[in-house]
Structures are given as C-alpha cells and as structure tokens.
C-alpha cells in the first residue's frame, strides 16, 4: 500500500513554484477516474440499497442452515453460525464505508489543522515535526496493533486507529504544501500590501495547498479499508457479531476447503472498493498535472 504521496520527492525548502490554475477537463468523466467512481459507486450502492433487497437479517440465525453452499435462498451460502452470508456482507459494507468516509476525513481535518498551525510558529513546528517523525516511525499496521492493544477491539477502536494513522500523513502533507505555496510571488505580494499572517494563511495559502490533500484523501480511504480488514484478520477489528468486510472474510478463512465461495464475496467487494479508491487517487493525481 502506498500511503504517502510523493513526500520523498518534495525538498524541505522548495523553490517558488508558479501555482498553476488547475485545468482538469473531465477527469472523472473518462479513463481511470470514471472507472474509480463507478467501482466505488457500485460498492456504496450495494451497501446502502443491498440490505433492502435481502430478506435475511445479518444477525438472524436460521435453523438448520449451517455452512450451506450457495443456493437460491442463500446466494453466497450460510456461515458457521447459520447466518446468511450475503446479508452479512451487504451490512458489512456499511461498516467499512462508515470507517472510510468518517474516520479518514476526521483524521485529515485534525492532521491538516495541526500541520497548518505548525507553520505559523517555529518552535511549534519543530515540536510537531518530531511528533510526526515518531508516529511515522511506526509501520502503519504496527501502530494499529499497538493502539488496538490499548483500546480493545470494536468499530470505534478501528476508527480511532484510522484517525491516528492519518493525522501525521495529512499533517506532513499540508505542511509541505503550505511551505511551497508560501514562497509564491502572490503571497509575497499580499504580505507587501500589509496582509496579516493569519489572513495570508487562511485566504491565500491554504486554498492553494489543498490539492495534494484531496488526492491523499482517496488513497487514505483505501488504506482505511485495508486497516479494517487487517485488524479483523488479526482478531482486533470490529467485535462479533457485528459484520464488516474483514469480519466476514475472517470467518470464511476457516472454511476455505468446505466452501471457497464463502470467501469470494468479501474478497470481491474489498478488491473492488480498494481498486476504486486507488483509481480515483491516481486520476486525481494525474489531473494535478505537475
């Protein structure tokens, strides 16, 4: 998983670039962008509307339906606790979407706020940079494991983990972007005519620094799906009986010999969702045209 966006290539104190007016005719109307939107859209639609069309309840234990193979009544079969897998899968999508679309933006917001504030004050900047260094010194999944050890399993824990993983990434990203934009001639011009520090940051610098943040947002959403699944596989994800993509997949791992189709549902949905986010990120990145 690539989690950080070409941060390695951006020098610490870059030359003043010209801030290009973004030209992106139809990034999301063709090619990768369209593919990504369609893939994510499919999963979102399945998660929002799907449960309405399945007559089983994801928690309902159906008498006599233990580990059944696919049939007309249960298209993906039933699991070890006699529950309909399709119903659990579709409800599980909701949990993953909740984590992706709530935890990632929250982490991004906090990270950007910290990153932007740090650029105002030198001492603060050094302190925040050291903090980010330490947080980024943990491989993402290792950080997740450490936090989960403290928090215990559960959906909320997964969300807290995702937020904590994203904060330093977005903080670092926005700080680099702000430092780069701040060297632009139009910022100097604003300062020359007497604009205050806060005003320049808010009105001139920040809006022009957000582009990489938007790309990272899509990338981070795919990372969130990854973290949720990984934590479930390791037994520290959402707590049973709540369904999630990772939880359904983890249960299926014990029965691969018996019914490989059991695993196929969560595998396909996870793959489609992650590939969708990734394609959106790649298309958005290409549209930045730098």
């Amino acid at each position, binding site marked *: *998983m*690539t989690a*950080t966006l070409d941060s*390695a290539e951006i020098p610490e104190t870059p030359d003043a670039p010209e801030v290009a007016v973004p030209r992106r005719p139809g990034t999301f109307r063709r090619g990768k962008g369209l593919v990504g939107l369609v893939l994510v859209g499919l999963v979102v639609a399945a998660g929002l509307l799907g449960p309405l069309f399945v007559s089983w309840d994801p928690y309902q234990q159906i008498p006599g339906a233990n580990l059944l193979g696919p049939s007309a009544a249960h298209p993906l079969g039933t699991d070890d606790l006699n529950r309909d897998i399709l119903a659990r899968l579709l409800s599980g999508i909701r949990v993953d979407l909740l984590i992706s679309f709530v935890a990632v933006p929250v982490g991004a917001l906090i990270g950007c706020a910290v990153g932007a504030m740090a650029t105002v004050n030198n001492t603060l900047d050094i302190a925040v940079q*050291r903090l980010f*260094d*330490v947080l980024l*010194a*943990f*491989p*993402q*999944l*290792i950080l997740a*494991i*450490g*936090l*989960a*050890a*403290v928090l215990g399993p559960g959906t909320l824990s997964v969300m807290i983990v995702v937020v904590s993983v994203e904060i330093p990434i977005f903080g670092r990203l926005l700080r680099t972007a702000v430092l780069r934009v701040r060297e632009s001639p139009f910022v100097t011009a604003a300062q020359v005519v007497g604009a205050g520090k806060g005003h320049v940051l808010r009105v001139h610098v920040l809006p022009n620094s957000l582009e990489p943040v938007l790309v990272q947002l899509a990338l981070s959403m*795919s990372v969130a*799906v*990854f973290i949720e*699944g*990984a934590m479930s*596989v*390791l*037994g*520290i994800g959402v707590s049973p009986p709540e369904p999630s993509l*990772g939880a359904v*997949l983890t249960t*299926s*791992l014990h029965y*691969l*010999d018996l019914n*490989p189709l059991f*695993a196929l549902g969560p*595998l396909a949905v*996870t*793959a489609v969702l*992650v*590939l969708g*986010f*990734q*394609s959106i990120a*790649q298309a958005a990145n290409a549209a930045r045209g730098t």
Partner: protein
Amino acid sequence: MSRYLLRRAPSALLVLFLASVLIFLVIRAIPGDAAAVLAGPDAPPEVVAAIRHDLGLDRSLVGQYLHWLGGLLTGELGRSYLIGGDIAELVGDGLGNTVVLTLAALVIAVLVALLLGPLWAATRSRWVDRALTAFHTAAVALPTFVTGVVLIIVFGVVFRVLPTGGVPPDGMFDRLDITAQYLVLPAVCLGLPVAGVLTGFLAETLRGELRQDYVTTVRAAGVRRRDIVLGHALRGALPVAVTTLGLQAGALLGGAVLVESIFAWPGLGLLVEQGITRRDYPLVQVLLMLSVAVFVLVQLFTDVVHAWLDPRIRLGATS
C-alpha cells in the same frame, strides 16, 4: 560517508528514544492491573504482590522505564507469563522464520521490479503498457489478505499443489526444495505490493532519465535502445529505487504480521498476534519496539546507500 552517517544518526536515535517512551507509556495506559490479571481472580494478595514485584511494577514509572530500556539493550527481556518461556527466546525463534520470509519476499519484489520496470519504461506496445498498468494498480491497491486468500484458494483448494500454511517440518535448511514449496505462497503474497510500488517508481524514474540529454547523446552514438535502458538510464534511476525500497520496509513489516497470520507462519507476526489476543503486554511491548527499531534502522541504512549511489546527495551533505 561516515560523516554523512554521523549527521543522520542523532535524529534516528531521537526518534527511537521518543518511540520507546511512547510505547512504554501506551502499554502502561492499558486499564487494569497486569499483576492481578496474571495471578487470576482467586489469587491471594501476597501472590499478586509477588508478581507485581517480579514484573517491576512496584517501582516508580521512570524506574520501570529505565529497567525496561536496560533489558532491551542487554537482551534480558523477562518472561512471558501467558505464552510461556523467556521473551528473548520466543523472539529469537520467531525472528529466524520472519527473516527468511521477509528476505524471500524482498528478493521476489526486487527481481520483479528489475524485470518489469525497464520493460514498462521502454515498451512501445500499447498492450504491454496496459497489462503492466493493470498489474501495478492491482499489486499496489489489493490488500495482502485479499491476495493471500486468493492464492490459498487457487493453489491450495482448487489445484492442491502447494502447502498453504506452516513451515517445513524438518527445519528451513533440511530440504531446500520442500522449503521453497512452503515459502512460495507467503513470500509472493508479502512481496507483491512491494513489487508493484517498486516497479511503478522504477518505470517512472526511468522514463524521466530517458528524456535527459545524455540519453539523446548516447542514442546518437548508435547504442542500442536496450543497452541505453539497462546500461545507462538504470544507473541513474537506481538511487530512487533504493529509497523507495527503504520506505517499503514498513509495508513489509506490517504485511509480515498479516501474511504470517494467514499462512500460519510461526514468526514474529504470529507472536504479535498471540501477544495481543492473550494480552501478553510485556511481549507486545518488546515486539513493537523491535519493529520500530528495524524500520528506523532500515531507513537510515537506505539513506546511506542512497548517498553512496548518488554523489549529489553525498557531496551536498558535506558542504
């Protein structure tokens, strides 16, 4: 060279120190009395007190931290009460298996990238380009647990040609052909994302190099296209590839935990998982610190290799 290393070492040490403090405090923040949990619900108070003393929990916070740090440096890591045995021994046992797995994955990733990267950069065929784009996107995006389970289903359930879990029964070096059979699925699974990222970066950098003036000069001199890519452009692209590889060390470490869990590979990752599920915090603490230390050291090492490969950085550092 050594001057460059000296310049970079302090910040790495600082990060390691802060990370150790963070890990120590976070593990201490877990609610509940570790000694009471270990002793069990019916234990008399003197047993709890004895365990508390044994764990060093009756010392001050700073004292506990220094004791732990000293243990880390001398290798005396204490006992694991829940899994059983000396922590240092447990870690030692797992480390061997994890190193074998990670190295195999690394070799696969580098070989794939060295093969596909130049091909992608130099190809003029639209279909090759599309195929490699698809490979890159899939390899980078698909989580390890998805590819791992697919590999198990294909090679272990449908075709039944390869073992899907565990390590060779008679040790890694008894029969190399059997070891290879056990190793191939987990190693491919772990190496695939790294291979994808590395291939992408290598191809990207190579394309940049191929646009440089010196390439035009070499081409004008009549050197074959293949030799230009492999003999000239690759040399310029290698430093970036090395840095990318270093940054991927984190993905490898985190991925190893997952892959070991999926393929039942008894390494450090499986140990972490056991430690977490059985709430063996002294063990988890050591393993977290170990992975951060490896990650930081690999990045430091990467920077040094990068500087060694790229004189611009080395000389820039000394000036």
